[in-house]
């Protein structure tokens, strides 16, 4: 009886792990799309609104759902709290704090990090150029993420269950 219960638990755990992995793959393109939209919004704030960076980041964060929006909110709050650090430092720190809550990978992180080196440093036309470049690179990443999703989402869904079943049979 206890053996059966343990087998059920192992099976359940592996199935849930497989579903979690599939979920990660499904969420990645969505979050990249949200990131692109946020950066476009930031661009609008900079060019047409002439909003200072902390307020602009806060406005972007309000328009964006949690995992991606938290990144901008974190940066905006840190920026408003103490003015002695540079935007670049604060941006890197925000990425460091918030990235683990998202499903995105190293490629997007590098692009966003790169954006942090130029954010708030120059005039608005130059800023817009850098933002556009980041958007373009993110589009490329999103295509790759879509491809990965198509390939690996269903694979992980069945693979989790199968691995669980294999382990249960091996130990039974």
């Amino acid at each position, binding site marked *: 009886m206890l053996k059966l219960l343990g087998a059920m638990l192992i099976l359940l755990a592996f199935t849930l792990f497989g579903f979690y992995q599939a979920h990660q793959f499904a969420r990645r393109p969505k979050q990249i799309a949200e990131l692109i939209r946020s950066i476009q919004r930031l661009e609008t704030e900079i060019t047409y609104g002439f909003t200072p960076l902390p307020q602009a980041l806060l406005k972007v964060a309000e328009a964006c759902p949690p995992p991606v929006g938290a990144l901008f909110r974190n940066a905006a709050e840190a920026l408003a709290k103490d003015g002695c650090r540079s935007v670049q430092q604060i941006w890197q720190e925000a990425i460091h704090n918030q990235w683990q809550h998202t499903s995105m990978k190293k490629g997007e992180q590098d692009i966003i990090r790169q954006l942090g080196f130029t954010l708030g440093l120059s005039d608005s036309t130059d800023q817009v150029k850098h933002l556009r470049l980041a958007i373009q690179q993110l589009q490329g990443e999103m295509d790759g993420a879509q491809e990965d999703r198509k*390939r690996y989402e269903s694979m992980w869904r069945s693979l989790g269950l*199968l691995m669980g079943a*294999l382990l249960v*049979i091996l130990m039974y």
Partner: protein
Amino acid sequence: MNVDVNAIFQIAGIGIIIAMIHTVLKQMGKEDMAHWVTVIGFVVVLFMVVNLLDSLFKEIKTIFLFQ
């Protein structure tokens, strides 16, 4: 005798599951992984079979060479 039947079912189950994992991995274009999974499954089954054979030979020894 009871143990023997269980072991056969276990090996059959491993075979079926490994075949399914192989198919899934191959469909998603991870052929190298699929082959590794098959090899590892084969090795595991081989160990079980070796254990069974060991007990078989011991049995034969006790039957024919008991003097």
